[in-house]
């Protein structure tokens, strides 16, 4: 089998069974990357030497018959806002252009403990702010299905490498849809876990109360397997969840949706939804009924307010989180300055891109003493109501179904000058982060022009198993191609 078509699951099994070595896999993959990545432009940093070294260690373990980790020998790409010890972590920003963290994020630590092979760091919107990956200071990543179009964002690089077959799986982060929307745009699977299931330690913060790391893969099974590795309480993250929940996600993938009650909120099908996406969703709903699920229209009116609440809260937190990039301790520092104030001002002026500055200003404004109640506080109240509405809906339904994005992948440059239109791309995903619940984006077909369409399955808090079970069943039924570049 060719490397680009292999899933993480197949690689892991092949290595365990001695069909091939991890070193062979890694070397094949880097050859493929050298051929394909110049077209897709997804990797900011490649770790070829280290990857081969790590692969050899795994192969040695196989040879000696030692116990192997859950991800033994499997290559993985990492979004460039997740800290990797000794490897540049830029957040696709000039301000962290040369930043090399002296520590691993908890998810990286866990991956290494399970013998995964980190192959490189991938592109994103600067500081995860954006929906097209066009806000990167370094690269313009292309959608592997149509190189004229964007891969979505902010985890555009993480989605593109999987769709282009230049990484079997990857990690992204999702603050308002940053895993699910690019997964939909690139026609791959992407999961945002329940807030608190995956440690945020080492994830460079955008909006701390919304950020969550999650997996990308060509299959639901790969996402389940990867989630199993990265989930779990972490003493380094106070917001990671202490209570016990099972992480044996693979165990529930039985292909059945029989008896599941699925709610479809009409607010997620309003004006602005692309007709082809709408039609695709309707056929999926029909399919689910055929498979034995109960699919029913419902209403979640408050979710229409989600976007404004999201942009206020996320920008407010971002304005504070990004204040530390002042050129004093690490990262970019302006060249000419007369005073420390000027040093900080110039560093930030030169170091941050347009969208990041826009959000910092928006967030700073929302937190100012005279406006706090009108904006930040109101947004928080709204967030509580959104959370409550999700909880109420999950009293009636096991899962909620919706499109992931209202639009198909758009052309590069099409929306980059119109932030409001760009923000609308997140309209179906932001509520999930506000409520803190988990959701997956699953490819469900293509437009007549061959552009991928994604659906979103939302579950209750800690309902990852339910989501994965339903997504797996649908995946088996729909059989959608997830490899864009053969």
């Amino acid at each position, binding site marked *: 089998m060719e490397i680009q078509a292999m899933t993480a699951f197949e690689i892991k099994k092949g290595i365990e069974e001695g069909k091939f070595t991890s070193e062979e896999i890694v070397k094949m993959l880097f050859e493929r990357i050298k051929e394909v990545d110049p077209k897709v432009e997804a990797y900011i940093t490649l770790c070829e030497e280290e990857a081969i070294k790590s692969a050899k260690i795994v192969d040695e373990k196989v040879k000696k018959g030692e116990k192997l980790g859950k991800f033994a020998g499997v290559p993985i790409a990492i979004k460039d806002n997740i800290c990797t010890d000794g490897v540049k*972590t830029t957040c696709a920003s000039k301000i962290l252009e040369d930043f090399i963290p002296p*520590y691993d994020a908890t998810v990286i630590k866990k991956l290494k403990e399970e013998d995964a092979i980190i192959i490189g760091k991938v592109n994103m919107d600067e500081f995860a702010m954006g929906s097209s990956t066009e806000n990167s200071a370094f690269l313009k990543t292309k959608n592997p299905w149509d190189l004229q179009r964007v891969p979505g964002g902010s985890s555009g690089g993480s989605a593109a490498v999987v769709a282009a077959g230049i990484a079997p799986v990857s990690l992204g982060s999702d603050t308002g849809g940053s895993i699910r929307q690019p997964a939909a745009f690139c026609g791959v699977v992407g999961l945002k876990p329940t807030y608190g299931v995956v440690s945020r330690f080492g994830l460079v913060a955008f909006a701390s109360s919304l950020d969550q790391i999650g997996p990308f893969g060509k299959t639901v099974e790969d996402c389940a397997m990867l989630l199993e590795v990265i989930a779990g309480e972490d003493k380094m993250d*106070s917001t990671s969840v202490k209570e016990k929940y099972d992480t044996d996600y693979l165990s529930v993938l039985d292909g059945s949706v029989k008896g599941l009650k699925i709610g479809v909120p009409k607010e997620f099908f309003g004006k602005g939804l692309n007709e082809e996406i709408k039609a695709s969703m309707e056929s999926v709903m029909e399919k689910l009924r055929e498979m034995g699920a109960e699919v029913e229209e419902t209403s979640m009116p408050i979710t229409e307010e989600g976007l404004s609440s999201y942009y206020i809260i996320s920008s407010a937190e971002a304005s*504070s989180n990004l204040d*530390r990039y*002042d050129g004093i*301790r690490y990262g970019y520092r302006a060249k000419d300055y007369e005073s420390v*104030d000027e040093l*900080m001002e110039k560093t930030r002026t030169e170091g941050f891109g347009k969208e990041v500055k826009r959000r910092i200003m928006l967030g700073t404004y929302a937190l100012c003493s005279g406006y706090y109640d009108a904006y930040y506080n109101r947004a928080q109240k709204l967030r509580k109501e959104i959370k409550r509405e999700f909880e109420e809906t999950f009293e009636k339904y096991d899962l909620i179904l919706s499109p992931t994005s209202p639009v198909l992948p758009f052309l590069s440059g099409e929306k980059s000058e119109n932030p409001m239109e760009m923000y609308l791309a997140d309209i179906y995903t932001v509520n999930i982060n506000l409520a803190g619940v988990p959701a997956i984006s699953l490819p469900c077909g293509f437009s007549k022009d061959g552009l991928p369409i994604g659906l979103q399955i939302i579950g209750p808090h800690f309902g990852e198993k339910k989501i994965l079970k339903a997504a797996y069943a649908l995946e088996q039924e729909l059989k959608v191609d997830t490899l864009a570049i053969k």
Partner: protein
Amino acid sequence: MSYETIIGLEIHVELNTKTKIFCNCSTKFGSKPNSNTCPVCLGFPGTLPVINEEVVNLAVKAGKVLGCRINKLNKMDRKNYFYPDLTKAYQISQFDLPICSGGHVDFELDGVKKSVQLNRIHIEEDPAKLIHLEDEPFSLIDYNRAGVPLAEIVTEPDMHSPEEAVAFLKTLKSLLEYAEVSDCRMDQGSLRCDANISLRPVGQEALNTRVEIKNINSFKEIQKALEKEQKRQSELYTYGEGHKIKQETRRWDSGKGRTIPMRSKEDADDYRYFPDPDLVPIVVSDSQIERIETTIPELPPQKKKRFLEQFKLTEKEVEILVADKALSHFYEEVVDLGGDPKTTANWILSDVLRVLKEKEIESSDMTLKPEMLCKLIKLIVEGKISITAGKEVFNEMFETGKDPEDIVKDKGLSQISSSDVLEKIVDEVLAANPKSIEDYKSGKLQAAGFLMGQVMKKSKGQANPGIAKELVEAKLKEF
């Protein structure tokens, strides 16, 4: 018109923890610059704070000692502002839900009982320390202090004179020291004070514009800074220029002995406080509070009462001893080892305090062991050395840490109490001074004093003066 002074204080104390508030770095004072740091306290990208439970415990303890209400649900907020001493460009502090509310500190000033009400106590992280070099165009930053836990204690505007503010602060300091909430070393910056001061016509209810004074680091400076600012405002009011008093922050320049404007209210940062999303709310349980209460040791008021009853000291003596935790502890140890309570108190209140002051040493840094002082006192009581020799031994012992008995031996300071030896010396002195004997006989009794002096001189100061005096007088009467 006469004016009344209104003073409120904000006191920052570093809490007595081994590690910082949000990471495992040491809080040790005086370490090599930037050695007690890690990615978390340096605010590196992606790092997260995790609260040190001990900080919560100590803040609750402080609250209990100061009679506060403990807010069982409280939370951490971010105070956002740009400054190179802040690693994250925000300080994690508490805004609208502090860990303790209310409380009071009771004390006496010139025999009058006073009580200062507290507004709140909240916990926060200390920023780094900036070092500005005199003749260089750059500053240095020591991040060892970044993340050291602080409790900020805010009083109501309840004090009416610099003396009262100082007396309050002394009482607060000793309470916190006794409770082991903080070591309260003003010289090391573990207790720092900002003061708000305003004046108003006597009888007026509303408060006038206040001025905040920062950077006052000793009781003496606080007294001086407040006096100076009180005078400045009083003059402005007296000459009808009261409107010139602006709400502003002024820095106390101890070298120049005056306050200097730092920033006015208009330039003040908007701190954009909001709850820190990286931390979960702090919940203090009843059982936790009960457990903390059992760790509160004897506090100064109880200790004063006990010292008065147990050791029969004067009120003044007890006052001075108890005000200094380390000193009172030292005192009790000497007494426990057998030192006479009164004599021990005399030694500590005169000689120990004198040397500490001369050498500018904090009592808690004193190397003098209670055993040593106890031995010295015994040597004197048992007549083995004279009081004068005792003072010399004390100085030497304080300086070198040598055993007092060894010092006595080395310096030949032991006292001659044996009557045989003394009698010989007295006889020799009398034989050499027939004129003095004549004088004495003729009624000039002061001649005895002269002869005593001669005895002391001949014995190189080692004669036991009591016995020598008896001998001289007895011999003279024989003539």
